[in-house]
């Protein structure tokens, strides 16, 4: 009996210690190299990809701000072109950071505030006319961010001279103000996110290196797949292509007013997703610990080929089939847009590879509930 009690106590003690799932005390060398180092993976993501990405995006937004000030003080066609160029540059950079909707970005809802498209023209015009608007309201999400700027820089009139005329006309001051407010709003939100990453969240993120549905890796992988499935695949291709509604919706294309952008935005987004998979640094070509190396470390050999190689190869196939398309606006004029939908299918094929094979191989939890492995 005493023995039982003794062993029971010991086991319970071990158990009690083990329920603490966020220990980072041991900085010494890992005695068994076979265990994959999740900390190194999270560090690579935070230090070499996410934070540099936000820094770059922040600086692009600063340029956008300067160009906006230039245009609002001297509204002319030349300054409009400068502003448009800064907008495109920032919008393109956004495609590289959009997927990191975790932690600080999730808290402020960065993606919801920066890139909900299509923009709601009626709300935008109402806001400008009334001059009374609170950009923090969720009802204004489709009246701000890049899509609203797209409308204000390309869509409010038929040619450049007429667009400039609006900014110099009777309501010009209100339009100029709105333009500036939109840019400031994006800057404020992004500055918050970057500041949090740089002051504390980075360490929180890296130290939460366990394996549970609330661990950094599990969460970010879920967010990453969600971005791929819902925003890159569906938002940029599936929805405009009519995959979910049965009829082409060219009005839901990204960069609607500027035109000829959605294909390149998609491709930038796809590059970002693949680079993230391979742990490629935001600046330069250095590759660190990544989902790719994690899968390799777990020695997931299937069908004679690495899962990571299969995923990379499907990324490449998808990229190539989209590259071969004309711009999305042209493709969607075909009814049905067969080539577009075929390219979409290649983009779609990545989803089960990420969502089924990768998640299964990494044992990523999707939700906290009891299970008995059936």
């Amino acid at each position, binding site marked *: 009996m005493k023995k039982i009690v003794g062993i029971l106590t010991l086991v319970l003690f071990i158990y009690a210690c083990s329920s603490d799932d966020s220990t980072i005390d041991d900085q010494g060398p890992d005695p068994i190299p076979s265990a994959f180092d999740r900390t190194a993976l999270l560090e690579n993501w935070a230090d070499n990809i996410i934070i540099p990405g936000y820094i770059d995006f922040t600086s692009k937004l600063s340029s956008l701000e300067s160009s906006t000030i230039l245009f609002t003080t001297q509204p002319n066609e030349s300054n409009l072109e400068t502003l448009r160029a800064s907008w495109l540059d920032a919008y393109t950079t956004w495609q590289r950071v959009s997927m990191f909707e975790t932690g600080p970005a999730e808290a402020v809802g960065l993606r919801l505030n920066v890139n909900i498209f299509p923009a709601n023209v009626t709300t935008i015009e109402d806001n400008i006319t009334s001059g009374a608007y609170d950009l923090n309201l969720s009802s204004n999400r489709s009246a701000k961010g890049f899509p609203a700027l797209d409308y204000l820089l390309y869509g409010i009139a038929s040619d450049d001279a007429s667009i400039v005329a609006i900014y110099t006309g009777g309501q010009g001051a209100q339009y100029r103000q709105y333009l500036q407010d939109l840019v400031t709003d994006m800057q404020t939100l992004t500055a918050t996110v970057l500041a949090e990453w740089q002051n504390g969240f980075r360490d929180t993120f890296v130290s939460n290196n366990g394996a549970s549905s609330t661990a950094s890796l599990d969460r970010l992988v879920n967010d990453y797949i969600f971005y791929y499935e819902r925003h890159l695949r569906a938002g940029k291709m599936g929805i405009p292509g009519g995959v*979910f509604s049965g009829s082409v919706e060219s009005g839901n294309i990204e960069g609607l007013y500027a035109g000829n952008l959605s294909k390149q935005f998609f491709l930038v987004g796809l590059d970002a997703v693949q680079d993230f998979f391979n742990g490629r640094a935001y600046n330069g070509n250095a590759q660190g610990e990544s989902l790719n190396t994690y899968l390799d470390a777990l020695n997931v050999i299937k069908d004679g080929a690495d899962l990571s190689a299969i995923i990379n190869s499907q990324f490449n196939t998808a990229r190539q089939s989209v590259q071969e398309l004309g711009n999305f606006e042209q493709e969607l004029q075909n009814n049905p847009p067969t080539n577009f939908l075929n390219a979409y299918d290649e983009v779609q094929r990545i989803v*089960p590879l990420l969502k*089924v*094979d990768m998640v299964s*191989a990494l044992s990523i939890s999707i939700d906290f*509930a009891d299970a008995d492995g*059936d």
Partner: protein
Amino acid sequence: MNRHLQTYLNSHTEAAPLAVFRVFFGVLMFVSILRFWSYGWIEKFYIAPDFHFSFYGFSWVRPLGEWTYLLFGICAASAIMITLGWKYRLAMITFFLSFTYIELMDKTMYLNHYYFISILSFLLIFLPAGNYFSLDTLLSAGKVGSRKRTSKASKRATQYIPRWTLDSIKLLLGIVYVYAGLAKLNSDWLLNAMPLKIWLPSKFDIPLIGDLLGQEWVQYAFSWIGAGYDLFIPFLLLWKPTRTFAFVTVVIFHILTRVLFPIGMFPYIMIVSAFIFFDASLHKKVIYAFAKAVKYPKQLLETTTIWQPVSIKKYKISLAVIAIFFCIQLLLPWRYALYPGELFWTEEGYRFSWRVMLMEKSGYAQFKIKDGVTGKRFYVNNADFLTPLQEKQMSFQPDFILEYAHYLRDHFTAQGHQNVEVYVESYVALNGRLSTTYIDPAVNLAEIKESFTHKHWIKPFNDEIKGL
């Protein structure tokens, strides 16, 4: 009737082990329900979702909106009554019905251990677990002296109960373990250490053993020891010389599974259940200590009376019911043999068979709706209809896929689409194999009827898993 069987059925044993079992069972069930409640799971899993997956034939069992809390409340209250031994039989029946109802509400939540609780509580209805160290016997004893009401014979304190009543619980536990062990005798588990090879490395953050779990030999060791444990532990518990060792093993094994896997209360239930294999003397010590603390009269623990059925006819019916119950328990896990194809792939006959921790299976299912009249087609966003957990479970289980397809058919028909056709593009990965197409994408699921017959629209499994 066989003479040996007759002798066995007429033999008796101390009631203490069954009483201890009753008390622990009640406490653990109460804690389980409290735990479920405190996580907000009643709201999250039963009230918030619009759609629930039903067991075949039980689609009438639905969550009751806000009243679902009352259902859990009733279940928790009956668990307390069981612990106290107050109106034991009524409490046990209430518990069995309310708990089983809860488990039938949505098969997304199906777990083998919930099924175990359901059938165990069914068995307990027929056992005299409330006649020793219980409120029933205490109240009944108080009434013996009074003239107005005589105590019910069924509630009188008895020190001895039929041996088979205790053995039936041991038998049920033995079935659970041995069948779980038999299910592990397959090539994935033994030769490839799957799925532990996938699961264990992700538990790297567990102190002391975390680093070991990434080692291949550890994964094989866990697989083989796990299978051996399940197959032999009931026998080691039954045989006195190995009993203490076996119990220590039970504790270590289940605590380890608790640390490694999210299996809730199950490990504790199994640890406590294993107490029943110990001699009555140990249980009596426990009860005497408790009785002293709560001032339960000692003479009620030493009545030397033998439990007698109130009605011989009812007793015989009970015996028949229990005999049939065990026949079903012994046969049900083999029903998979009646289906063609790989069990792990089709899951036809997978549930209610003690197949636990056997598969790392995940899937992806994208549904395509086609209006049969206009020809218009589009894809469904599953998140519009299902919770993440429902979507996860649905994506690799054919009966879920079919039920959801029917739900989509009805939903889009109600929206005005005509002759709705439902197709699914699905991929499933099993135990580390690359994902392959799961359901025939050319089959219109809107037209398929659910039944117990083989689902021919499941694509064949491209590999072979040898074994039971």
